[in-house]
């Protein structure tokens, strides 16, 4: 406990003494975390959107024109028994035509020339949130094979593709943030090492009087920790200000991108991890430098 108190007292004093050069290390950590934080904000909101789309997933079973009411009942029973459906709705051929005319008003004139209604009746099924994708697909395959079914559509591939693109962007961003974190740790190590060299006599005395390693190295690790912590807090503040500014200028556009949702800042938990990450990067830099002390 005493060594921790000593480490932070000395580390804080050293940080203040070398505040000019420490500012570079703090800035390096802040920049790395701003990149990471911005990436997290984008991917966090994209994930929320994906989750919303996923939970709103539905599939349609198109019926043949000659499908009997018994066949329709059998299809509906199969859907209900699967326990995958959160609800279902029968859309008759007439309703399908009405919907088309309503949703594509500019094309509605085309439909007036039809001798008979070309739209098939269908059963629209809302998939229960959290339902497994594979099980839902298996059900759709089973339904397609049933008498009276013309086709069934359960197009989740685009969701998978979006998730995959998002994953790639996130991985690239994480790699970039990791590189910047390493650069930040090196900067911290360099700055701490500069301070260490001005305290050679002090360190020699500490070694000669038999001071424990925690007392010799601790202040340098604490200095890195503090640099990292300050950098991380600055990064979080900058992200928050940036977020508020972006929302003030482009809030409605951004919200509309989210399909009715609203763009969110990072949850407290992620902010906490971001700050912890900064402290960790700083501590690693401090520890690397401290190994030169004894």
């Amino acid at each position, binding site marked *: 406990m*005493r*060594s921790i108190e*000593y480490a932070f007292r000395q580390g804080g004093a050293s940080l203040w003494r070398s505040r000019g050069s420490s500012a570079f290390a703090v800035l390096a950590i802040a920049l790395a975390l701003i990149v990471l934080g911005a990436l997290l904000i984008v991917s966090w909101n994209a994930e929320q959107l994906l989750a919303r789309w996923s939970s709103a997933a539905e599939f349609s079973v198109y019926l043949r024109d000659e499908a009997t009411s018994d066949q329709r009942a059998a299809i509906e029973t199969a859907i209900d028994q699967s326990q995958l459906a959160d609800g279902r709705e029968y859309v008759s051929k007439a309703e399908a035509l009405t919907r088309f005319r309503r949703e594509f008003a500019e094309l509605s004139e085309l439909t007036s020339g039809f001798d008979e209604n070309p739209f098939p009746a269908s059963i629209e099924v809302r998939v229960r949130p959290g339902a497994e994708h594979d099980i839902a697909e298996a059900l759709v395959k089973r339904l397609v094979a049933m008498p009276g079914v013309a086709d069934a559509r359960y197009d989740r591939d685009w969701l998978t593709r979006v998730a995959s693109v998002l994953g790639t962007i996130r991985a690239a961003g994480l790699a970039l943030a990791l590189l910047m974190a390493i650069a930040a740790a090196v900067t911290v190590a360099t700055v701490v090492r500069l301070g260490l060299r001005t305290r050679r*006599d*002090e360190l*020699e*005395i*500490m*070694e*000669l*009087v*038999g*001071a*424990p*390693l925690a*007392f*010799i190295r601790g202040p340098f690790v604490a200095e890195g920790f503090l640099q990292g912590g300050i950098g991380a807090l600055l990064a979080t503040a900058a992200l928050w200000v940036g977020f508020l500014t972006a929302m003030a200028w482009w809030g409605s556009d951004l919200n509309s991108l989210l399909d009715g949702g609203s763009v969110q800042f990072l949850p407290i938990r992620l902010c906490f991890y971001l700050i912890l990450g900064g402290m960790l990067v700083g501590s690693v830099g401090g520890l690397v430098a401290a190994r030169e002390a004894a």
Partner: protein
Amino acid sequence: MIETHHLSKVYSRGLYALRDLTLTIEKAEFVFLTGPSGAGKSTLLRMLLLQERPSEGEVFVNGQNLATLNRREIQEYRRGIGFIFQDFKLIPSRTVLENISFVPEVLGVPAAQQRRRAFQVLKWVGLQHRMNAYPHDLSGGEQQRIAIARALVNDPVLVIADEPTGNLDPDLSLEIMNLLREINAGGTTVLVATHDRELIRLVGRRTITLDQGKIVEVA
């Protein structure tokens, strides 16, 4: 207290700093180590402080073979030794009292105890009135007395001084030697490396003379 057996230290290109050195220093003894520059005095002291390792031979202090100590044991061993250097090695950014209390502080001694003990030794060297001064405000003699106080703050069983009067005039040198004699009178073993023959004559204690890494005289 201190025994060396066939101790040698060879640097690169076959240069011997110490050569086959065998000596014994008894507990509570005051011993001078003298000889010309490059005789090996500082090398021997550095080995006693475990800042250097022997190339050959062994060093025993209080029955402990220094070559066998691990990191933790080295720390423990060093806590029993006080050291004094020619250039004082005081920390310029700390006050006199802080320079002394620094030692118990980094050994984890509670703050009140650190200051109490630091003040005791500061009083003993007669500089309690300069406790809030900084090293650059002090004369060379005062700085060395602070260094002595720092060496004593941990109640060492052995005090090692490397040219402690090298930067001081003859009167101050004798004053410093008197302090070391007083420390020795309390039962602490004192080993002083110096090339000041006149000082050795005035203090009049056992003297080991080294030349080119070998003992050439014990008087």
